[in-house]
């Protein structure tokens, strides 16, 4: 068990969600509000998709039965080509250019302005996917209800990875207990999460609601879920290109989208492994490994 916990700690350090937050903060410092919004534009969809994946992996919530699993979930989403550039707008500059977003090319782009002015736009991190790993606990079940929580807080000091804190709490309630003749086990789940990167650099809140259906075939349990995600993100950074530093806050519009999941759970006596595909704000995948009963 100790080895397993050690593995979890190691794995949760692989937080792709925090790609060099120190560098991110520095690059944002050269961008005014609307352009910072463009630079960060791929993140809301990717964060929404990954954070809201791998929350519930069964519709089978017993009416009254001890259940405790501790594990780690690894969720990822792919970025598309359209996520790699945006078009910055600079007052007084008639020209436009496709500048890299935070996930785009590492090369900066020079925007030529009137009279020979040049304004440089920072490069991105050149990443094609977005990963979050987080420990998750499921506890149940009482009156057909089980609680799910995930939490991680890592402070990697002055390193490029920076500070990250993710907290998620939710519950799943059995629907099939009221309809015993249903061919599949059904449960309604609600999950709320916050993710903070850096000291206020990125602040996100998300809510996931779904109905998960599953059916046992020996130790294998295929599952599917239909639901929706609601996601809100804001960024706060020091704008350093002016005469004096000023703190700029950028609020992104709330995103609400459908979330479809198909997956399979290998429900062994102690070890639980699952893999799933998600069609949400972006397409993604997740795997999870847990120990428990």
């Amino acid at each position: 068990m100790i080895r397993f916990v050690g593995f979890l700690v190691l794995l949760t350090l692989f937080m792709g969600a925090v790609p060099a937050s120190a560098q991110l903060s520095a690059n944002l410092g050269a961008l005014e509000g609307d352009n910072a919004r463009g630079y960060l534009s791929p993140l809301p969809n990717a964060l929404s998709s990954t954070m809201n994946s791998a929350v519930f992996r069964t519709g089978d919530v017993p009416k009254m039965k001890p259940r405790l699993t501790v594990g780690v979930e690894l969720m990822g989403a792919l970025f598309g080509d359209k996520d790699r550039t945006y078009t910055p707008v600079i007052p007084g500059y008639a020209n436009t250019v496709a500048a890299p977003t935070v996930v785009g090319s590492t090369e900066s782009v020079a925007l030529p302005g009137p009279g020979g002015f040049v304004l440089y736009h920072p490069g991105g991190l050149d990443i094609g996917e977005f990963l979050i790993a987080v420990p998750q606990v499921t506890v149940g079940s009482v009156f057909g209800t089980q609680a799910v929580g995930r939490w991680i807080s890592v402070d990697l000091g002055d390193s490029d990875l920076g500070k990250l804190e993710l907290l998620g709490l939710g519950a799943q309630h059995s629907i099939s207990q009221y309809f015993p003749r249903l061919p599949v086990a059904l449960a309604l789940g609600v999950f709320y999460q916050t993710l903070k990167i850096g000291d206020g650099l990125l602040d996100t809140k998300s809510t996931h609601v779904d109905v998960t259906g599953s059916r046992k075939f020996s130790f294998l349990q295929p599952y599917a879920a239909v639901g929706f995600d609601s996601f809100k993100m804001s960024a706060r950074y020091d704008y350093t290109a002016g005469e004096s530093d000023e703190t700029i806050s950028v609020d992104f519009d709330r995103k609400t989208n459908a979330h479809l999941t198909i997956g399979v759970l290998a429900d062994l006596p102690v070890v639980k492994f699952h893999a799933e595909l998600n069609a949400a704000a972006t397409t993604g995948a997740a795997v999870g490994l847990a120990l428990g009963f």
Partner: protein
Amino acid sequence: MHARSWLQPLALVLIASVAGSGCLLIPEVQKKTIDLAAGASTTIEFPVSGTIQSGTLDKTVDLTDLDLATVLSDAGIDVSNVKDVKLAGVEYRVSAADPVPSRQVQINDITIQVGTQAAQKLVASSFTDDVSSVYGFKLAPIDVASSAAVGEINGLLDNLLDNLKGGAPLNTSLRCTMSAASIPANASMDFTLELRLKVSVVGTMEVTVVE
């Protein structure tokens, strides 16, 4: 077909799909060299007290005022990794208002001169604005003719960068002159006009990312 006979292949397909999504879910730590951009600015103050005459709006400015070393340090860019530094804009504002309402200043042109023997080069021309109230920086009207002046300033920025790198000291100062008139004409004015030179700098930095 019996459920269990198709379920196992289906499960394998699903797991393979997850694992094969562009090698998604296999975290990899990578060192990358990434272009960082930063901005800096220096402001030239032109206090006006009395009538505007030739030489009233005339200042020498040293681009060391940009404090490029601090800008680079704050952005995490080592001076040896700077790729380029360029002038990105010229703006103006009134920072202290004339107490008499409806006073204006007409700027005929803004020129710069690098070296006492060099010709003055046009930066911006022909604009009129209120000086009876304080306002934020506005873009100075720049046209194609200003490219020579912009080139001169970019040359000074290159000098500034060379100086930071420890080279032999090179000139980083310029003379900035505004040809202007008050509205109403020959009125005794009391205001402060500021001109801001904005600079864009780009350099590289090595970062660690996980994907």
